[in-house]
Structure formats: structure tokens, C-alpha cells
């Protein structure tokens, strides 16, 4: 009787402990690999939107900068040969199916180098069209006023607005930075 009362919880606890220990070991083992692959992925998309830069440094941000429905969550400065060539803004805005995350590269003249939609959960075949280079490439080389004039994809107004709001937010952050420098 007594043995029946004690054995089940003891075995369950032991199994829990062993499994947890195995998980801690796996976590310690995979952590450096996970961080390396995350950093590599972030670097690759930053390099894509700001091709001139060879190295990137994340700028400290106290809180997200918002402009309308868009917000900037991270900024990194891109440098080549020690000279600042531009900044990469990680922005997001609410689309049809959740947050649309957009990376914008802006050079020192205030022109967009490239826009890339990195994450979205929009309707495949409709909202997802905004991630196509055929749409985002239109922004390359334009400035704030030019980007605002690019037409939304027909039928995909909502998600197109989210992308544009992200670009607006990037420019808001860009101007704030310019103000601080002066």
C-alpha cells in the first residue's frame, strides 16, 4: 500500500528532473549556434538593403519611435572604410493579418537605398504581394516624398499602406537622428 503511494510521484519527479537536465545541456550546446545564425540572418538582410556598407553597428534606442501606425524598433548604422554610408531601420506596421516587418535602408543623402519586407502574415497571393521585389524595388532611389507617391497594389491597399507607414516611420526616426546630430 505504502509503496504504491510513494513510487508514482517519485518516478514522475525523477523523469522530470532527467528531462530538464537534458534540455539544459541541449540549450547550452545549441545557444551559440542559434545566436550565430540569427546574427548572420540579420546581417544578410541589412547588407541587402544597404549594399554599400560593409559593417553594421546597432544604435542604442530607448523606446520605439512611432509615426502614425508605423513604428521603428531598431536602427543600425552602416559603415564602409570607417565612414558612415547610411542607416538601416527595422520598422513594423499593422497589416491585414498581423504585423508587417519592413527593413528600410536610407543613405546619408536621405534617399531610400532599398526596402525589404522581412516578416508578414498576410493572405498568400494577395497581401503577400507586397513582399515581391516587383513592388518593393519601386522604392529604391526615391526619397520621402517620392516614396509616398508610389501606388498601392490594387486590391492590396491595406497591406501596401502598412509598408508605406513603415517607411514614414523610418523617415521620422531619420529626422530625429539628424536633429540630434546638429
Amino acid at each position, binding site marked *: 500500500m505504502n509503496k504504491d503511494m510513494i513510487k508514482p510521484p517519485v518516478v514522475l519527479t525523477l523523469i522530470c528532473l532527467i528531462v*530538464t537536465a537534458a*534540455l539544459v545541456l541541449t*540549450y547550452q550546446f545549441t545557444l551559440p*549556434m542559434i545566436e550565430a*545564425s540569427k546574427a548572420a540572418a540579420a546581417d544578410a538582410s541589412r547588407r541587402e538593403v544597404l549594399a554599400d556598407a560593409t559593417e553594421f553597428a546597432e544604435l542604442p534606442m530607448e523606446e520605439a519611435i512611432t509615426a502614425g501606425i508605423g513604428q521603428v524598433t531598431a536602427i543600425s548604422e552602416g559603415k564602409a572604410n570607417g565612414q558612415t554610408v547610411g542607416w538601416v531601420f527595422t520598422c513594423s506596421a499593422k497589416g491585414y493579418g498581423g504585423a508587417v516587418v519592413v527593413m528600410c535602408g536610407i543613405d546619408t543623402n536621405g534617399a531610400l537605398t532599398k526596402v525589404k519586407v522581412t516578416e508578414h502574415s498576410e*493572405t*498568400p497571393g494577395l497581401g503577400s504581394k507586397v513582399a515581391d521585389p516587383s513592388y518593393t524595388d519601386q522604392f529604391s532611389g526615391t526619397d520621402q516624398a517620392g516614396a509616398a507617391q508610389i501606388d498601392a497594389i490594387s486590391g492590396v491597399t491595406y497591406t501596401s499602406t502598412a509598408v508605406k507607414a513603415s517607411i514614414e516611420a523610418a523617415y521620422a526616426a531619420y529626422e530625429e537622428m539628424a536633429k540630434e546630430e546638429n
Partner: protein
Amino acid sequence: MRNRDILLNGIIKENPTLVLVLGTCPTLAVTTMAVNGLGMGVATMAVLICSNIVISLLKNVIPDKVRIPCYIVVISGFVTIVSLLMEALAPGLYKSLGLFLSLIVVNCIILGRAEMFAAKNTVFHSMLDGIGMGLGFTLALVLIGSIREILGSGTWFGMTVMPSFFTPITIFMLAPGGFFVFGCMIALVNKLRQKNDSLVHNGCMNCPNVHHCHNAQEAQEGGCC
């Protein structure tokens, strides 16, 4: 039972997805692309093989009263290990499977095989069963994923396979398309089984909860878990 029968049982005769209709959630959710189906299938197979082996090893240690919690702990341990490894080695796939990678824990194929097979058979046979069932699940997922990807976006494993005049039928990538393709696949399998005259309805009998389930007696077609 002969080793080959155990292995083939899971792939064809008792295919967990198309015959037993278990683990429907990941089957529908991740099969928008063939490659996601493959990733999900392989991840589930890895967890299934490992948990079958461990549970079969521990079958004399685990007391009957707490066996389900013990199985769940072992399974969720392996699920976390597999998802950590996937995050490290295949971050793209990890991202597209998302939540459903964690939900392998509650995939009834795994708990079902632990209860129905691993707890009663030798370690080697349990491993073979894990491989067979895992392969059956993977095959079904890749098949459904291929159909949905080809019709829904005109590509297969990311390569364009449809001629340029073909307009992708986007609905196949969305929720309704998932239900539709899965339903048609099961109907096809039913048709083939009728021809071979080996119609065995055992959906619910493979469910880990069959002993508690009032539904098992009436639900002939199975499918609850």
C-alpha cells in the same frame, strides 16, 4: 511479428494520417508547401523514434497510475530538443513551422504509439514502429504539401513546375484548401482500400484516450483525439 511487417505497417496499412486520421492539426496547418511538410514530418519522426525507444526502455519502471504524465514529459523533452536543434541548424524551416513545432507534444500519433505500442513491445520493435509511423506521416505530409503547393502557387519545393499560363489557385494555400485536399486524399485512400477489400475501421482504437472516450463506441470513422 516480423520486423518488416512492423516497419511497413505504419507506412501503408495503418498510415497514421490517411488511414487512422491522427495528428490532423499539423497535417492541415503546415502543408502549404511541400518543404514544410517534409520538415514537420522529419521532426515528428525524430521525436516519435526517440520517445518510442525511451518509453519502451522505461516500461517496467513507470507506474501505471502516472504513465500518461510520464509519457508527456518524455515526449515534450524530445520535442524541445528537436526544436532547439532545428532553430540552430535550419532557422528558416524553424520559423515557418512556428507554433506547430511545439505542438508535436500533443500530436496524438506520438502519445498513441507510446501507449499502444512502445509500452508493450521490445525496444527494437518500438524503434521500427517509430520509423514506420514516422515515414508514413512524412509521406502523407509531403504528398498533401505537394498538391497544395503545385495548385496554390505553381511551384514544387520552390521550383516553378507549372506552365506560365497557369494562374495559381491561391485558395489551396489557405485554410479551406487544406481541409479540401485532406478530405479528397482520405476519400481516395478509402476508394483504394475498398478495391483491395481490406477495409479496417480502427481510427479511434489507436487513440491514447480510447479507454475513457464515450465517443469511441459510436464514432466508427474515428478522428477524435
